[in-house]
């Protein structure tokens, strides 16, 4: 009888322990849901406090920590709070299945923030996966980053090395190759030549740079002020105050136009480079969103 009572107590004790574990897990799950709800509603400061409380609790499984970090990271990312998002993505451990998505999104944040080196380090630290698609995605991202860095030598060597089996990556990689060709073709026109052209005829340097609208307005402005200065010179002579004033204004416009023409050559080049860079960035984003969404 004594034994039966002892077994009975033991059984209930075991049940209680099991119930405690289930309750704890359930509480972690509830807290995780609540934090996700707060983050989804952009209540980030409250979500952070709740996260702190949850992580401070003893015995929290790493799965919950990773899940909270990942989902909060996603919400920060959607809200364009990229530094916070990156920090959370990088804290996701490789024990969970969304580790790859977190890592690639962190890399994407670096790429968008003009930090290709940091993105390269991030992608390089991702280990070999059993999935061939994921390995191809890593190689594709790395090659795109070398292109962004204008490291054509490495990009070329990688493009010779890789033939992607995944159709999405393969298509985007062909696009990357085209962007690489365009990137090389963007040559800097001569700033000196543009300035020289504007010295001859105000605005001509801007036509050479490719800014026809600006060229016309520069030509008209210089022309009108030049006409005023000339008229005052012819009527009153060089020493008259009005002549000095308008000649001074004309000189400022004329020299400013020469300087502007030289600069516009650089500006046009930067604009073209930015456009190509944007296309490369979109190309890098597409496979990530297609893979993980």
């Amino acid at each position, binding site marked *: 009888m004594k034994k039966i009572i002892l077994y009975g107590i033991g059984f209930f004790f075991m049940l*209680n322990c099991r119930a405690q574990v289930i309750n704890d897990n359930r509480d972690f799950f509830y807290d995780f849901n609540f934090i996700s709800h707060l983050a989804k509603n952009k209540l980030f400061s409250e979500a952070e406090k709740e996260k702190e409380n949850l992580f401070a609790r003893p015995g929290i499984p790493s799965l919950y920590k990773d899940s909270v970090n990942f989902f909060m990271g996603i919400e920060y990312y959607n809200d364009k709070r990229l530094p916070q998002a990156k920090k959370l993505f990088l804290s996701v451990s490789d024990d969970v299945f969304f580790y790859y998505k977190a890592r690639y999104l962190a890399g994407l944040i670096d790429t968008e923030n003009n930090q290709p080196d940091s993105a390269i380090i991030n992608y390089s630290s991702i280990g070999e996966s059993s999935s061939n698609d994921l390995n191809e995605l890593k190689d594709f991202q790395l090659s795109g980053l070398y292109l962004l860095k204008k490291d054509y030598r490495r990009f070329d060597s990688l493009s010779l090395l890789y033939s992607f089996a995944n159709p999405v990556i393969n298509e985007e990689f062909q696009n990357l190759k085209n962007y690489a060709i365009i990137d090389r073709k963007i040559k800097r026109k001569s700033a000196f030549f543009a300035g020289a052209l504007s010295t001859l005829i105000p605005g001509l340097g801007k036509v050479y740079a490719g800014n026809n609208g600006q060229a016309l307005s520069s030509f008209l402005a210089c022309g009108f002020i030049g006409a005023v200065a000339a008229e005052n010179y012819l009527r009153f002579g060089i020493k008259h105050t009005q002549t000095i004033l308008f000649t001074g204004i004309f000189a400022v416009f004329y020299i400013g136009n020469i300087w502007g023409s030289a600069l516009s050559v650089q500006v046009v080049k930067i604009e073209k480079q930015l456009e190509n860079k944007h296309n490369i960035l979109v190309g890098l984003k597409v496979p990530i969103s297609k893979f993980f969404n």
Partner: protein
Amino acid sequence: MVLKCLLVSFLIKGQGYSLAKADSLFKTTNYEQAATAYERVYFFSLDKQEKMVSLFGRANCFKILNRHYEAYNSLVRISSLELDDSLKCAANYQLALALYLSNYFNDAEKFCAKNYSIPINSKEYKNSILLHAFAYNELNSYKNARLKFTEYVLLTEIKTEHKDSIIDFIKSYYTEKNLPQLKSLRKARRLSKVLPGVGLFYAGKPGKALTNIGFQLLAVGYTGANVYFCNYVTAAVAGVFMIRSFYTGGVNQLNDIVPKFNNDRSRKFNDTFKNVYTQQLIKYEALK
């Protein structure tokens, strides 16, 4: 005993998001934590009534923390379809109050107006009339403000002579000649377009008007002198450029001057009324 232990342990876990816990945090003035606890109740509770109470509680926390727009964001989640008339009225009033305190007077006015279709005469209904009047006052809609302020006084339970005294004050304050003479931007711009500088006189800036007229006369004089001395190119380019600049400058600066003038004038009028009217309500114990 073991079963009891299990049951107690389960109940304790279940109380992780109880309304009582949120209320106790609120009572101990931990408003930030209370707001989160109310949100927790809203998220986990399956009871619609409890959800609604939690949103009111959360809004109250933010109201005390002077974060009125966050209070509005909590209240706006209450579904008015699930509320009875008195709660609908209370919700509309709280929403309007949060918006009014966040300086969104137009939206506050709309929420106050929603209460007129509700057949109820609760405290919130009366308060929403007062709030509506204040919103109209801020929006410079003085005719409507006067009606609403009077309506509120008539609804209060104070002595008739006190009511009459306050109503007389409202009438005398909102007479046509007392109302702030606000300027029309459109009219000011038209005046300045036809007669340069006159729009600035109209907007109550004679100094700026005289300066602008002076500059425009100088520009015209300069152009005329150049024409007189046969400097036609200079007259056409420099003269016309100067005239045009001063002319359009005189018209465009009205875009800043007129709203500022109207705001200064109405602010003084509105604030004086608000202070005196509220003092009278307090004096006659109408706000009880």
